[in-house]
């Protein structure tokens, strides 16, 4: 490096203006800089590498079991005959039910907080409450579900049923939907609301016909993310006692709501925790199915977000 020529006299005695030494020291400092930037890059690369290893490992173990029987068979003690039909159907049941509960409730609560009582003590109190709920471990929701839905509301839910599971998960992901709704509504310019009021519409009419349709894509994105969180959850469903061995599919009726159930994560947990390698392969197969579902949902959410962001 070329030294910069110095003014004749250094001004303070403490400074070592000897060019060479300063430049050498700077060379060392820049060396540490380079080393550190590589380390930081390495951290990111390592995290992504782990993701890749995880996916490849699951694919290698799981792809061989993915055949028609795997999708159409009930679980079995014999690995060769076991499949995920009841878990897959259970996951779909739970997903639909959670969507049915969280969409109206979460969106309604979001609209109430954002459109009817913004900046009130109630909105603030609920906001703090929601951010606290987000930090509660999911297994605690399981204990709540066990007490409230499985035991207290037994006459309605018939205990450890798909209804109890869906209600538990709905409470777990409700904050996600409420927050997404509020953020989405907040992004709608208020001039639109004033235009509606100027035409003599009530607040609800304005929200329903002017604001809500514009906010819908953002809300749907939030709902999808909430659902993908819900169908990946295992712990709360174990706590409320979702069974693993379900050799039947729930009826498409009210009675179906009250039947015992299993879902993909629970089936995966069960198969992983068995000692035999054959079951581990089944678990890997079920993981592939679960991850594909999650990926599709996330892709939909991203598509919605990009498409309506204009």
């Amino acid at each position: 490096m070329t030294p910069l020529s110095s003014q004749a006299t250094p001004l303070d005695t403490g400074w070592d203006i000897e060019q060479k030494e300063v430049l050498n020291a700077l060379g060392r400092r820049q060396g540490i800089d380079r080393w550190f930037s590589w380390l930081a890059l390495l951290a990111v690369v390592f995290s992504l590498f782990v993701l890749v290893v995880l996916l490849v490992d699951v694919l290698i173990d799981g792809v061989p079991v993915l055949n028609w029987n795997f999708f159409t068979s009930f679980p079995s003690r014999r690995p060769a005959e076991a499949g995920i039909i009841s878990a897959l159907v259970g996951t779909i049941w739970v997903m639909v039910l959670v969507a049915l509960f969280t969409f109206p409730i979460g969106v309604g609560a979001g609209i109430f907080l954002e459109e009817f009582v913004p900046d009130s003590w109630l909105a603030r109190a609920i906001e703090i409450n929601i951010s606290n709920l987000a930090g509660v471990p999911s297994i605690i929701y399981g204990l709540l579900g066990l007490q409230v839905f499985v035991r207290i509301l037994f006459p309605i839910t018939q205990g450890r049923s798909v209804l109890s599971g869906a209600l538990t998960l709905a409470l777990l992901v409700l904050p996600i939907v409420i927050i997404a709704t509020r953020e989405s509504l907040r992004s709608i310019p208020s001039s639109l609301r004033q235009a509606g009021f100027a035409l003599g519409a009530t607040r609800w009419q304005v929200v329903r016909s002017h604001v809500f349709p514009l906010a819908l894509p953002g809300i749907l994105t939030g709902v999808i993310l909430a659902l993908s969180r819900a169908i990946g959850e295992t712990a709360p469903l174990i706590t409320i006692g979702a069974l693993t061995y379900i050799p039947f599919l729930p009826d498409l009726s009210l009675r179906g709501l009250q039947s015992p159930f299993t879902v993909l994560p629970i089936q995966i947990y069960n198969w992983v925790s068995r000692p035999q390698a054959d079951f581990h392969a089944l678990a890997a197969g079920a993981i592939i199915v679960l991850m594909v579902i999650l990926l599709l949902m996330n892709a939909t959410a991203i598509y919605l977000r990009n498409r309506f962001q204009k």
Partner: protein
Amino acid sequence: MTTNSLPPDPNNLWQPSRGLNKWVERAVIWLFGLFAIISVATTVGIVLSLLFETIEFFQVVSLWNFLTDRQWTPLFSNPQYGILVLLSATFLTSLIALLVAVPLGLLSAIYLSEYASPKLRKWLKPALEILAGVPTVVYGYFALLLVTPFLQLFIPQLGGFNALSAGIVMGIAITPLIASLSEDAIYAVPSALRDGSYALGLTKRETIFGVVLPAALSGIVASIILAVSRAVGETMIVALAAGLNPRLGLNPFVPVMTMTAYIVQVSLGDTPAGSIAFQSIFAVGMTLFLLTLIFNIISFWFVRKFRETYE
């Protein structure tokens, strides 16, 4: 005679159902208000459902014994409920997780906000989000069937179930949380501070360590505490990979049982409601809830402190 000063519409074409509108408006407010209250009711429900069984539990087991016993043997004829045993396992797995997640997450956050080009950043952030979206049961599979056998190549005495691989994989799982929240904090540091540091002849790394990180400190601390809370409450990874052996101590190579793993174990068994074992999972749940609540409150406080500095 009407008090309305506007003349009546002679043709009667405009008949807004004002009465109906008002009624709908009121119904909507009440219904949606009720929905909003559900989130508050959830909190109350959690506290109450934990509280009732916990009170029952402590009528049989004294709080003193719960806090000081050094054994956790709920199924013995002379059962002992020393929460320290489960706490030590939770502490151990969380500690290992943080030893992995804090450096990985912080370095990733620094790379994303200070080094990566905007284009690269646009790709890396969603990739980290995928990592955050992987269900924990999948991480459990990974810990038990891939990481443990891999580590056993280097550590022959490592058990098939152990705190080490559960902790490491949990660390990977919470890395995106630390990375994303810390990145927000680092990104929010005004660039004027960086300029000030560069103008004094400091290098990029010196600027990051000397100026940017200290300025973002409370936000970073908040993200780490939130990660602690997540690690303490994490269930599936430890239930699958750390084992179900209540053991007091901090040996990472042997099977242990965390608080969450205990709740899973009892839930999987056929424990009748009302029994002391059933009540014990609520006492453990209460401990877990209070612990995470404390961490969340501290984290909240740090976030607010961070905001106060810049807003």
